[in-house]
């Protein structure tokens, strides 16, 4: 019952393990098909072969899609990525030089967003998984989270502009960008934290309660330590999501060019995704800066997919251990 109501939130909240975890073994389904019931002959068999080939091809296209994009960017970008490229600021009105300010900016924004979103997200997930009882309030909160996850990124940008930049008078700054991105990553964090809280066996909680601990003591001393690695995995995924977003920081934090590295939370900054966009569409010389565009894309992809791979591998290990 609980699990069914949670599927939507977990999934829609993005990449925090977009496929759900299953307690039961997958063999459950497949062994039936390997039995004699599923044997077919003649025309029906040909239809089956054809159909299943289509399904297989669909899956293959996804793999090819990912491979083509990554390979293409890597192939064209690896020459541009040198040590100087990673450690210098852009020069000659952004037609030469490196992308250090963008890397620093993206890290500031991503890490800042997680620092803000993680405590709120974890606390929300604790309420949803440990305290809340099914009912109208819970349904409303879940609806709120899934709708927040569905808000277009450019609308987050508008919100950040109207609220943080103008209304709270932060101006275009790291702080405004961080808070906007935190709002955007919140559902991701909630989803992944809930998943890891759910994977803590109930016997842990029962044992703790049975020896006289209160609810809060149980959560703090037993549930959270057990769920911590999963929560951190979610944090990495949230970080990668925040680092890759462009639209929310366009109006709130990012600028074409700043000669210096950020010095305070109120500085404007450069960021990798925005840098790619600017160079590719509005740069001083779009064709001449192609190598820079490929190089910047490669650095961004490596950062984002790298973080995701770490999280995926780590999560797979955790799941195995939980079994």
């Amino acid at each position: 019952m609980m699990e069914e109501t949670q599927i939507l939130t977990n999934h829609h909240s993005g990449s925090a393990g977009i496929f759900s975890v299953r307690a039961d073994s997958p063999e459950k389904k497949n062994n039936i098909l390997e039995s004699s019931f599923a044997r077919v002959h003649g025309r029906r068999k040909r239809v089956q072969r054809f159909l299943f080939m289509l399904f297989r091809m669909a899956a293959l296209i996804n793999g090819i899609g990912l491979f083509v994009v990554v390979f293409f960017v890597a192939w064209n970008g690896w020459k541009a990525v040198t040590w100087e490229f990673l450690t210098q600021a852009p020069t000659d009105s952004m037609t030469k030089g490196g992308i250090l300010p963008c890397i620093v900016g993206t890290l500031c924004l991503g890490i800042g967003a997680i620092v803000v979103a993680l405590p709120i997200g974890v606390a929300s997930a604790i309420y949803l998984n440990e305290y809340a009882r099914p009912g109208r309030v819970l349904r409303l909160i879940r609806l709120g989270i899934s709708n927040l996850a569905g808000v277009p990124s450019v609308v987050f940008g508008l919100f950040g502009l109207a609220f943080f930049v103008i209304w709270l008078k932060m101006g275009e700054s790291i702080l405004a960008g961080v808070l906007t991105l935190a709002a955007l990553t919140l559902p991701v964090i909630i989803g992944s934290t809930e998943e890891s809280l759910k994977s803590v066996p109930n016997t842990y909680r029962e044992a703790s309660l049975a020896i006289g601990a209160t609810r809060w003591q149980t959560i703090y001393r037993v549930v959270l330590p057990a769920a911590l690695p999963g929560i951190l995995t979610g944090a990495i995924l949230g970080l990668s999501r925040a680092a890759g977003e462009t639209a929310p920081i366009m109006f709130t934090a990012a600028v074409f060019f700043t000669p210096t590295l950020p010095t305070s939370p109120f500085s404007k900054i450069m960021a990798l995704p925005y840098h790619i966009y600017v160079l590719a569409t509005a740069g001083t010389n779009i064709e001449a800066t192609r190598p820079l565009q490929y190089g910047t894309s490669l650095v961004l992809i490596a950062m984002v997919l790298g973080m995701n791979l770490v999280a995926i591998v780590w999560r797979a290990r955790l799941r195995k251990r939980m079994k």
Partner: protein
Amino acid sequence: MTNARQRTDQSVRIFFFSVALASIAILFMIMVFLFMEGLPIFRKVTLSGFVFGKFWYPTSSPPDFGIFPLIVASIAVTLVSAMISIPLGVMTAVYLAELAHKRVAEIMKPIVELLAALPSVVIGFFGMVVVAPFLQNTFGIATGLNLFNAALMLSFMSVPTICSLSEDAIYSVPVALKEGSLALGATHWETLILVILPASISGISTAIILGMSRAIGETMVVLMVAGGAAMIPSSLMDPVRPMPASIAAEMAEASFRGDHYYALFATGIVLFLFTLLFNIIADHISHKYRQTGEASL
């Protein structure tokens, strides 16, 4: 002693409850600020003039604030991308849930996850430098930055959503149904098409709606590859300017709290309402027609 502990426990509970309300609070604030900055445009144009106005010339004088071409562009791009992403996403889901060997599925799922994690700006960049020249040369058209290219790139982004949610729905069909069908002599594919897919249709519909919601709100891809012409498209290869692209491209040049600025926020309201509608429909379907075993068929 017990009372003190109970009181602490109670206050901790209340604390977590109030933090859990943060998501709703943010959602509410988003609405408040969108409306606050967007509604003033309706002093200049009527609601129907704004939504159904055919001309979007925000910087000419006198300016025209009709976002109908932008709305049509958004819907067209989303529908065309749905035609690509629905078959691809659902078929991949079927493959993962029903056909794939466990080992293969363990590799395929992370691939789909990584696909979901690709930054949209990189996908947009790929569309600009690879797909656009290809389309231009192959079909001999004026520009490769057009509706079709944007739709193609958008399906990149909605396939993972559709795939993961559909896979879940397909997997959760009770085994007894499948066994029953096989026992009656149906083949695996007959069971798939006639039993499993109908049984999981509510989950698949939810997946499709959420995938489309993702596509309509996606910004960088349409900003970079849709072409940017604010006209009602007459063919697949026409350049278009969907709502998110318009907002992202023009906000920098719009004067602060001028009419153009208000109009862009009002476009944001329309976009927000679209995705809100999609999400509420998806939520409704997933709750009302929730799979509760054989009884729901």
